[in-house]
């Protein structure tokens, strides 16, 4: 397993639509392992492949984040939201590609998602609470969308400028 470098916004790769996965093979399983390791190391509760520059429609998540909780790693390939609740929910979201910036985003409170697992089997499940927010946030990444795209332009520009500054500082080392 290898830790992968997480891309920081703004980056053209974070704005691209990822490509559907056509076959589940050992490369893809290795990628999933690397993504989980990178996510837990960050630490984060979700990570989408484009965040590590891989243009596959795949995401990993684990929202069981209490310290004593049993890990519940999930790998979703080609995920699709097939149903959303009318009820909506507001969470303060963050993103590993936009470090230390948080903002409230409103999304459907519950969603049903279908996806392919690492055995190539189709799965379908309903998510609520933090899991629902997380899975929608990560699926957005596969469509080149970030949580700050839901914010007002002024707030979004402020965050983007902070990130540009952060990247310049990181580049200077």
């Amino acid at each position, binding site marked *: 397993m290898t830790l992968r470098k997480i891309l920081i916004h*703004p*980056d*053209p*790769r974070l*704005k*691209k639509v990822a*490509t559907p996965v056509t076959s589940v093979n050992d490369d893809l399983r290795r990628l999933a392992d690397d993504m989980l390791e990178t996510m837990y190391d960050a630490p984060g509760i979700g990570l989408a*492949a484009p965040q590590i*520059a*891989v*243009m*596959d429609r795949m995401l990993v998540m684990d929202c069981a984040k209490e310290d004593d909780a049993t890990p519940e790693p999930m790998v979703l390939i080609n995920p699709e939201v097939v149903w959303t609740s009318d009820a909506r929910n507001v969470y303060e979201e963050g993103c590993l590609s936009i470090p230390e910036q948080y903002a409230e985003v409103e999304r459907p409170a519950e969603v049903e998602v279908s996806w392919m697992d690492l055995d190539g089997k189709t799965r379908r499940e309903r998510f609520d609470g933090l899991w629902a927010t997380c899975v929608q946030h990560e699926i957005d990444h596969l469509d080149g969308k970030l949580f700050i795209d839901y914010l007002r332009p002024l707030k979004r520009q402020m965050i983007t400028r902070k990130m540009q500054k952060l990247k310049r500082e990181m580049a200077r080392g």
Partner: protein
Amino acid sequence: MALRELRFEGDPVLLETASPVQQFDDHLATLVRDMFETMYAAPGRGLAAPQVGVSTRVFVVDTDWKDADPAPMIFVNPEITDRSKEEAVGTEACLSIPGKSFDVSRPLWVELRWQDLDGGVHHRRFEGVQAICICHEFDHLNGLLVTQTGTQQ
């Protein structure tokens, strides 16, 4: 040989989907010769037929000539058959958009099938600068410019 007139951003021919080449004749050979002359004179590393106003699926590439010996390559009816899933961001310029540069995300490698001037079929993997250049020119055949695929610097 003749220099052809370059077409610039705003010209509708740059937004068209180019048509496949069907006849591998002198007309095609002349077009390609003119495209090389135009590309070297510009100077550039790649040029697609729509950039000289010809909406046909041909591009030429020479990624080496600015720093080493010329290595002209001709691609007729190219198709990308595979590409790396990992992408990298690089800076690109375009002869049709003078004076600007763009950050564009491209695959690390692409596999391409194409035809030569005689219609012979080739298949090969390209990486690095060649892959970037090929993707850039390939986009021209589908009416795509770096103004759409990238971010201006």
